[in-house]
């Protein structure tokens, strides 16, 4: 397909549609990135024109093509121990705060969305094992979700490049990974420790079952959302958290520009947002 086959208007229509479905908004400057991926799918699906492809995309009941396309459009960049200060905050400040308030013996629940290829939820698990004594007394449940089914497959598998593990201390790398050719395979116990699920954060039907979390990590996703979707996401997290539950955002994302529902809490390692204790 020649590049010119996707017109300005087509692009606009697609942009609007994709935004409504995923909350992800492409700036006009992303035109080339979007066109290239659209063209790839148009060709692979054997569609005659952008129009016929777009019609299929919108009306296909299974949503299969939309998932394929979404997998292509997402930016999955991530690595182990990214923004490590937040994991330090988790073990040194958040969990002690949660445990101190806790009245039942139920597991402590952590939701990491988006998971991308799994480095973030696995980092959390590693951090708990290495740096949190409470792991001996409490059950912990880590659930991690992403919209991209292909990347979720990778996450479950747990095979990583040297680049992805480069920030891990040598002893941690040796303890939890085995080297396979020039890659690193995460150990079975850690794979067992994290549950991966497919969730579109912009879709209430997907997020509704996610409740009663003590901590949510949502890092480096909201930067791709526009204002309304960001606000809706913050409101979704409000219903997913227990009263007093915490939410950690990426370092370039501040709740102060998104929503007023959370309390700002300062801990030695980081600023974290908290659903008010008295909230219902």
């Amino acid at each position, binding site marked *: 397909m020649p590049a010119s086959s996707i017109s300005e208007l087509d692009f606009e229509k697609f942009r609007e549609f994709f935004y409504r479905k995923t909350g992800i908004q492409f700036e006009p400057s992303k035109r080339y990135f979007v066109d290239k991926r659209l063209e790839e799918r148009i060709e692979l699906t054997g569609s005659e024109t952008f129009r016929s492809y777009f019609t299929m995309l919108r009306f296909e009941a299974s949503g299969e093509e939309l998932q394929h396309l979404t997998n292509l459009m997402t930016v999955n960049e991530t690595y182990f121990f990214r923004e490590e200060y937040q994991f330090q905050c988790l073990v040194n400040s958040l969990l002690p705060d949660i445990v101190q308030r806790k009245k039942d013996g139920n597991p402590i629940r952590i939701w990491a969305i988006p998971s991308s290829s799994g480095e973030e939820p696995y980092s959390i698990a590693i951090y708990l094992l290495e740096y949190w004594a409470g792991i001996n007394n409490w059950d912990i449940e880590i659930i991690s979700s992403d919209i991209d089914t292909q990347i979720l497959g990778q996450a479950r598998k747990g095979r990583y490049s040297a680049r992805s593990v480069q920030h891990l201390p040598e002893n941690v790398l040796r303890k939890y990974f085995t080297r396979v050719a020039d890659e690193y395979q995460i150990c079975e*116990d850690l794979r067992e420790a994290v549950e991966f699920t497919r969730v579109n954060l912009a879709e209430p039907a997907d997020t509704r079952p996610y409740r009663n979390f003590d901590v949510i990590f949502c890092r480096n996703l909201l930067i791709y959302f526009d204002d309304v979707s960001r*606000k809706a996401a913050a409101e979704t997290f409000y219903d997913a958290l227990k009263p007093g539950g915490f939410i950690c955002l990426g370092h370039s994302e501040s709740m102060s520009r998104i929503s*007023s529902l959370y309390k700002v809490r300062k801990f030695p390692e980081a600023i974290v947002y908290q659903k008010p204790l008295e909230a219902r």
Partner: protein
Amino acid sequence: MAFIKTHSAQSISEDERKQPRNCENLEAELDNPNPTTRRWAARDLVDCPKASVALVSHLEQEEDVSVREVILTSLTTLGDEVAVAGLVNCLSSEGVALRNEAIEAMKQLPDEVAPIMRKLLADANPDVRIFAVNILESLRHPDVEAWLIEVIENDPHLNVCATAVDLLGEVGSFAAKEPLLRLKARYFEEPYIQFAADLALKIINED
């Protein structure tokens, strides 16, 4: 190790999702005593085409800010005439919080708000006019500059003019130059107007 998994996806998802959520039920749930139920009703009502009426009428009486926020998000997504009219009504509400929340919602709906902009800019209440100018900020409408010029030429209220000048610095072109100079002359004893108008003029001259 004390990591556990809930028994796969099932137990994550067993809940009222199975109940049919028709629009009528959802509207009734806006009055449920449990705020979580009200938030979910407000969230799910975006899929009901006529939901704006119920959402708007619930907005003013809703005491819980978390529910109000979800209602406003849904109204923003719906963005129809009823939604916009409901938001406009909030502008003259006594509650500062609700007023600010409504302004923020309206900023997300520039195209829907544009047709009633003139009316808002002529409102008898100067606060509403200031809000209207605030909303203009996000309006991508060819008339924005003309509206702002009209404000600084004619609005009798100092703070309405001051707010409009802020914005002219961003969107103003050569056409705003003379009106800005006249405004400066009219408020020659007002340092803030001098400052803001000079700033706007500087930006315009640089373009």
